[in-house]
């Protein structure tokens, strides 16, 4: 008897310990970032976020081009990816919920999630960049090939599995009797999907999109290879640019003086905060919209 109680206590202690450990870890993370970027933080203050110029040789460290780069590529990627992912999810859960076709597409989506990002980078570089260059030539703009738009497309493909698989899961959780009620009133399959299934699974789908966005915000390798690594403010979605993650990856090994290193770490801190902020806002929206 006593032994059983003790074991229970021990188990609880381990659970508490693990949870506590995680909090300490995140806190420690945060402290390290702040300490390591303190030089840049004190030197540039808020101007770091609003500064449009990043010129380490002249000592200009403004991160706005990268902040914009990250937000534009990620949101654009999400906008392109979302409808495709949602259609895949609906297709898998309502039209082909079993059988050969279902398995082929489901496996393809799963494979997509397992492809290393450097492979996406190569694919973007060798397959997509020439196409985009053609397109840019045809509409008469500077044919960079690489850039924000190219990155957004590659990101949109990379994040499909996140929205698609979570959406598929929540869509398949819509109770059969609720769907049947709609059919019994004379609704067509399309009407049931649009007016019953999607509203029911809306917040879950939103959570999937949020996860996908988080993935896009932090994606480093593929984007670094195809965004063009330009440090000036993007002027159009076809401009070459840099994201927060790609500029760190690209310049960290070259950063020689301490201000430069500290500024790059501050970009890391900024990325951390932006991701956290978007997640918090998303969670808040989900909470506000869950109605049942």
């Amino acid at each position, binding site marked *: 008897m006593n032994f059983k109680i003790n074991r229970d206590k021990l188990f609880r202690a381990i659970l508490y310990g693990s949870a506590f450990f995680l909090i300490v870890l995140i806190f420690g993370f945060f402290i390290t970032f702040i300490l390591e970027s303190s030089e840049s933080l004190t030197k540039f203050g808020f101007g770091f976020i609003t500064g449009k110029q990043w010129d380490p040789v002249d000592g200009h460290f403004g991160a706005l081009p990268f902040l914009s780069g990250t937000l534009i590529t990620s949101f654009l990627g999400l906008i392109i990816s979302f409808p495709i992912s949602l259609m895949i999810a609906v297709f898998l859960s309502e039209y082909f919920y079993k059988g050969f076709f279902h398995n082929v597409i489901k496996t393809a989506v799963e494979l997509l999630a397992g492809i290393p990002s450097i492979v996406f980078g190569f694919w973007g570089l060798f397959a997509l960049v020439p196409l985009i260059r053609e397109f840019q030539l045809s509409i008469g703009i500077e044919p960079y090939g690489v850039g924000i738009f190219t990155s957004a497309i590659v990101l949109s493909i990379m994040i499909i599995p996140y929205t698609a698989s979570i959406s598929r899961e929540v869509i398949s959780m819509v109770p059969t009797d609720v769907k*049947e*009620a709609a*059919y*019994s*009133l*004379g609704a067509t399959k399309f*009407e049931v999907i649009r*007016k*019953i299934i999607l509203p029911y699974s809306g917040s879950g789908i939103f959570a999937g999109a949020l996860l996908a966005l988080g993935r896009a915000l932090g994606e480093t390798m593929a984007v670094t290879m195809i965004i063009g690594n330009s440090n000036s403010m993007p002027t159009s979605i076809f401009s070459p640019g840099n994201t927060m993650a790609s500029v760190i990856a690209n310049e960290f090994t070259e950063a020689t003086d301490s201000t430069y290193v500290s500024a790059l770490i501050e970009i890391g801190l900024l990325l951390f905060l932006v991701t956290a902020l978007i997640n918090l806002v998303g969670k808040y929206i989900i909470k506000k919209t869950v*109605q049942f």
Partner: protein
Amino acid sequence: MENQVLNIQNFSFYYGETQVLKDINLSIEKNRVTAIMGPSGCGKTTLIRAINRMHELTENTRTEGIIKLYNEDIFELDPITVRRKIGMVFQKPNPFPTMNIYDNVIAGYNLNGIKLKKSDKDIIVEDSLRKSALWDEVKDNLYKKGTFLSGGQQQRLCIARALAMKPEILLLDEPTSALDPKATSHIEELIKELRSYVTMLIVTHNMGQAARISNDAVFLYLGELVEHGKTKKLFTTPQDKRTEEYLTGKFG
């Protein structure tokens, strides 16, 4: 026969290779309540789900014979049309959880993309809720979620939702089996009152309920229609030995 709403002729039903309804013949008259009785698994649900072609949502089902709604074979109509004309109430109350009470009642129109003026909708909603004896209880909370209602109220909401489409027939599949006795008797009263508006087919394995609310009764056994007649007659002088055994509790 003018009064004949539904006429089922030589109807058989198969799940894959298994035949679960065997050569059913049944005609239903207007503004009457017909109880479908029979032991569990005898095919009651299958029969009423075939009447509004809900069985087509299940894979591998096949039917033989015809089911006429007035003079048209439902299998020659569009299933959408059939389902708008034949309403259904399910075993477990299933209001739409994303919608408020008002939208639940008018859902048939919204789902089908039928545009109505707000004033027309208001009339339909109030009328349907009055018919389902729910109006007084919910009239001040029309814009609250239907899922906050009690089980019995939810089931009456589902009845209102079906009535809103002004169906020719209302199919009810054991509508009280998930409810407590008080809610059950409330629904039974309601069904008696609704008779003047709509023809009803109600599946029940509660014999008392069948006796209380139905005009006619059908006894199904192992997929066969054993007996059909006036409820009183079927209960007092059953013609078939199997009906008698069922009524005296020998099986089911």
